[in-house]
């Protein structure tokens, strides 16, 4: 080999490895044609559908074979047959929004023993049941910011209530726990949480529960509804009742469902992340796990397509990012 050619090759190799280091660390390319099963909490919840679609978009981008299967009810046991089926079908990865933090663990463990990568999203299981949890936003952050939003609107004093999903909804219960933590701070001493009502994530039940709250607690200043079904139903009731403008409503909801209520003043501010991004990130994490680029250990970094790089945090938790706060000024920029 002549020196010139050698030098050229050397430079080329150097630059190649150099580029590689800048882009993907020592990453192997993401494997294609991975079989990825996405199991939402239930298949008829519009929020879950958006999230699953995000995961499927990522699968398409990466050239994986993704599919969405799941139950139509949200009982603790309803998702188990789908996990078992994924094992039998020798899928490469399972993405699951868990209906119960514990009930699925033994079955997910069985899946992991069969070398299936498990990523939870939206709603976590106990850490031993999965490699990575895609957290849509820090639970503590959601609890704090919802209380702060309400406190700002009602001047840090008065009665308020929470309209939750089902009594057993893991996410909502965690967020409520952090809300109660936040309320212990001295600046909220004049605010009182009078009741936690459950709309069961059914539109009609949430609607009548809102009615009941407003009637039973005449001094109610505000309602926090940390569920997209609940806040939409509550907004609809309040907007056609004399309570409109007197009771502050905030919580978690999608801009498309709440746009008109923000415009008519029923809601001033609410928050949410992009549900599709949660699914998208989960699918990328699963593909990276399957490709051997990460193991779900703290400190590992991986690339997640359009979302850029993400780092695995403590206990295998990957944070999507801070939620977006929607109000009359920005709501028209969003469509989901």
């Amino acid at each position: 080999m002549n020196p010139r050619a050698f030098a050229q090759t050397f430079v080329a190799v150097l630059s190649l490895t150099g580029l590689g280091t800048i882009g993907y660390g020592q990453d192997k390319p993401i494997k294609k044609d991975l079989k990825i099963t996405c199991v939402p909490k239930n298949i008829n919840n519009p929020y879950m559908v958006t999230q699953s679609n995000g995961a499927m978009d990522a699968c398409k981008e990466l050239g994986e074979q993704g599919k969405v299967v799941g139950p139509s009810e949200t009982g603790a046991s309803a998702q188990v047959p789908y996990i078992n089926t994924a094992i039998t079908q020798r899928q490469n990865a399972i993405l699951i929004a868990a209906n119960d933090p514990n009930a699925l663990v033994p079955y997910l463990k069985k899946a992991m023993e069969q070398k299936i990568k498990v990523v939870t999203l939206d709603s976590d299981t106990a850490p031993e049941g999965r490699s990575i949890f895609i957290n849509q936003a820090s639970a503590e952050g959601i609890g704090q910011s919802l209380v702060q939003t309400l406190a700002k609107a009602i001047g840090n004093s008065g009665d308020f209530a929470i309209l939750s999903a089902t009594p057993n909804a893991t996410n909502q219960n965690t967020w409520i726990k952090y809300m109660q933590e936040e309320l212990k701070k001295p600046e909220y001493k004049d605010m009182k949480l009078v009741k936690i009502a459950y709309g069961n994530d059914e539109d009609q039940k949430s609607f009548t529960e809102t009615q009941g709250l407003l009637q039973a607690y005449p001094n109610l200043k505000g309602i926090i509804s940390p569920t997209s079904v609940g806040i939409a139903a509550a907004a609809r009731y309040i907007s056609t009742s004399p309570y409109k403008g007197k009771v502050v409503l905030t919580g978690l909801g999608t801009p498309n469902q709440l746009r008109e209520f923000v415009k008519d003043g029923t809601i001033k501010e609410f928050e949410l992340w992009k549900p599709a991004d949660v699914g998208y990130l989960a699918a990328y994490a699963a593909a990276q796990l399957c490709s051997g680029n990460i193991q779900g250990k703290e400190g590992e970094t991986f690339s997640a397509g359009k979302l850029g790089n993400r780092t695995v945090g403590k206990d295998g938790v990957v944070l999507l990012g801070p939620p977006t706060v929607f109000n009359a000024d920005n709501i028209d920029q969003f469509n989901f």
Partner: protein
Amino acid sequence: MSQNQTGTSTRRLARRVSWETMLAGLLAIAILGGALVNRDFLTVENWSNLLANFVEIALMALPLSLIVITGEIDLSVASILGLSSSLLGLLWEAKVAMPLAILLCLLLGAAAGALNGFLIVRFRLPSLAVTIGTLALLRGFAYILLGDKAVADFPPEYTAFGIGVIPFTFIPMPFALFIILAVVFWILLHHTTVGRRLYAIGGNQTAALFSGVDLKRLKMLLFIASGAISALAGIVYTFRFSSSRADNGTGFELSAIAAVFLGGVTVQGGKGTVTGVVLSLLLIGIINNVLTLADVANEILRIVTGSLLIASILLPNLIASTRERWRVRQRLREIAKFGAASTAK
């Protein structure tokens, strides 16, 4: 509920001859179809999942079949499951020893069944209305006990029972429990005087009363058994998922009832066999499994279950009425022939 009286005997005959056979045939077709459509279907692992999937419903269906045979119904079974699961969680959290906690759950289930029995037998209230009431009442009690809490962390030796299989087989431990109980119920219904009395009650309430069957006590015992076994199903559920929640098993009553009816137990009472019910449970379980393996959407499963339920009665009825019509026509022809012959003379 059916007003139809004509042709019942033919229909009964048609059913007796063929229903279990027909179910067995369907079962064979389902297994064969499953094996052809999906190569994962006939794996040991898949079968142990398949059998474990419907074990709570199967447990509840056993006493329920006997109740339906006597002309009554129990819609509260799934609520008793939830109540028992909640109590188990609560007791375990309160550091009560597990065997004692299990015993207390079974007792609570029996008591709940006794409440049903008491209202139905002693006050002669219609079981459909009573158990719609206790469906709400007992689920309500579960929520009162546990609220929004979920208890997990059950001792591994018990959850191992929930998810484990019998050594060297693919049969899940809870399913073995079901097999044992199914045998007990089979003997009880088909090989004891108690069983004959149960049929007698369903066939004709008044006649059974006069012929000296202690109808009240038998029905009472059946509802107590239904309560206790539903509580057992609640315990199995809790260990299988290591999760005690007030909403556990919500809606299971409809699946249990569907299995009982599909098994050939008639709603008018007096008819049906344990074999039929076991076959129908297996059939529903296999169809669900095959469809899930084939990634058929969950909603289709509901449509299939509902259609099976209706077809299970519609088909025998149609067969019987066709035979009946044919026989009537035959007889009319004979009469006409006879008439023609006699006028000719």
